[in-house]
């Protein structure tokens, strides 16, 4: 079983459209959406939710007004600025429990916090493991780990060849959590200076965690000069650029139709993505 995670650094480069296409192209796989705080893959795969679970993670402090003597110790010690006027701001509280441990009046309790939901769904392309982080919640890294664990169990149970993961943007906590132990990271970039800058940083993260990478330049013809720059940067770094994908409104039209682009049209973009999947699957067979 091989796990491919699709990342980009910069948001909006086309990760989800590519993962949805792989969903239609790969034979034996389970799909995962690790972008738990702004998940979109389900919008292209039309999932039927089979299992929904609450995700409880972390705690939040509560101050009992009646017991509180307003001594101010908690306020003074909290490094997250979460306590003001003897009240906890749940959005700032990081659940460390420092206040709870030091309160001389035992006025503070720590309450478990429901941070989201995880789902296992069926789609016409196979299982999809996804989640929805509660609004403004923490612990996206842990929810990502849970979603990946769900996928791994399914892949083992059903003896599937691939876990294909749509990753979050950025390089922080949920990205690191999506990445650890994956067989390959496909980095989708675009030929803009921001795209290049962000690609370099996400390559750094993959290297830091020892994950092999492959790059794909989406909307390559938007600025071919920048595409060359990306390709020569990658060559210098010993990284393979596996595909160039054209700028094509069909990708957006497919999103509007709620379909993977390879199921929506049969033009150049579809051919390019098919070839990309071919390269990835061959690489993983080795």
């Amino acid at each position: 079983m091989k796990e491919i995670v699709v990342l980009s650094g910069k948001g909006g480069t086309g990760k989800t459209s590519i993962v949805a296409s792989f969903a239609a192209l790969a034979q034996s796989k389970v799909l995962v959406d690790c972008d738990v705080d702004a998940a979109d893959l389900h919008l292209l795969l039309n999932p039927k939710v089979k299992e929904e679970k609450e995700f409880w993670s972390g705690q939040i402090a509560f101050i009992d007004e009646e017991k509180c003597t307003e001594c101010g110790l908690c306020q003074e010690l909290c490094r997250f600025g979460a306590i003001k006027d003897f009240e906890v701001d749940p959005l700032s509280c990081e659940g460390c429990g420092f206040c709870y441990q030091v309160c001389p009046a035992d006025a503070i309790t720590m309450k478990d916090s429901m941070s989201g939901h995880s789902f296992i769904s069926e789609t016409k392309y196979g299982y999809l493991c996804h989640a929805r982080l509660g609004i403004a919640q923490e612990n996206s890294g842990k929810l990502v780990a849970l979603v990946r664990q769900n996928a791994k169990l399914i892949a083992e149970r059903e003896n599937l060849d691939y876990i294909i993961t749509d990753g979050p943007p950025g390089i922080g906590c949920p990205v690191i959590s999506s990445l650890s132990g994956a067989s390959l990271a496909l980095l989708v970039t675009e030929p803009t200076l921001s795209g290049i800058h962000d690609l370099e940083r996400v390559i750094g993260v993959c290297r830091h965690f020892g994950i092999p990478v492959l790059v794909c330049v989406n909307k390559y013809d938007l600025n071919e000069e920048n595409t060359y720059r990306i390709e020569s940067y990658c060559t210098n770094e010993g990284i393979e650029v596996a595909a160039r994908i054209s700028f094509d409104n069909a990708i957006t039209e497919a999103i509007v139709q709620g379909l993977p682009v390879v199921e929506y049209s049969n033009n150049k973009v579809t051919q390019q993505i098919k070839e990309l999947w071919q390269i990835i699957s061959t690489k993983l067979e080795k």
Partner: protein
Amino acid sequence: MIISVASGKGGTGKTLVATSLALSLIDNCKVQLLDCDVEEPNANILLHLAMKQSQPVYISIPRIDETKCTYCGKCAEACAYNAIAMIKEKVLVFPELCHGCGACSYLCPESAITEEGREVGMVEMGNSGNLKLIQGKLNVGEAMAPPVIREVKKYIDPASLVIIDVPPGASCPVVEAVKGSDFCLLVTEPTPFGLNDLSLAVEVVRKLGMPYGVVMNRVGIGGEEVEKYCHREGIPILLRIPLDRNIGMLYSQGISLIEGMPQWREGVLRLFQDIKDMIAASRVAK
């Protein structure tokens, strides 16, 4: 006045809008642009300021003096993040898990724990005339963006107009960046992904309780659903930017909209006037 520019979905044009506001307003007042997308800071790709100062960001992690430690285990018990573990007569510290809350050092009965700084990122500053850029940069391989965002926001100068470029998503880094703002602009695009992620961002802003409005980018792709959603929810659409290959081309080359297409300045100034009016109206309502 603090205006944050957020989006939910990545790649919708937050940085384009934030830099356009900053560059349109510098003729009238002092402007600080805070790049709080610390995982992938891109504002300076469009502003080209020389970064003159840089300051490392540290979080405090425990250092245990084994000559004083009696292996009582109180620190490990106190740590909500499992960053300290006791194994027989040995204390293990896992710095990547530490949030720097300070509970362990405070609660150690032997005063065997001191704190030392662990660098997790940088704050860099540059300026030109009325414009000051303060950007945070999370170190590659680090998971936690909020401490870097908090550090960037310490530089807020109340005498300036402050514009915050927010990371994508709807979880803790977004809250950290947006909270305390007088207004939040949400940048979206008229696709199902744009709509889904906009509705998540709207929930975050409602939770934070501040006036907000939408900038619709790439008008012309996708459909009417975002317009309908905004209408239904009573959310004003304050600016529409059409799908225009020239705008994309400028962005790809690192040229800001105001520099490349100065005719946009007027529209952006109107947007700013609308924001000011909405802030004033919400103060009256309160």
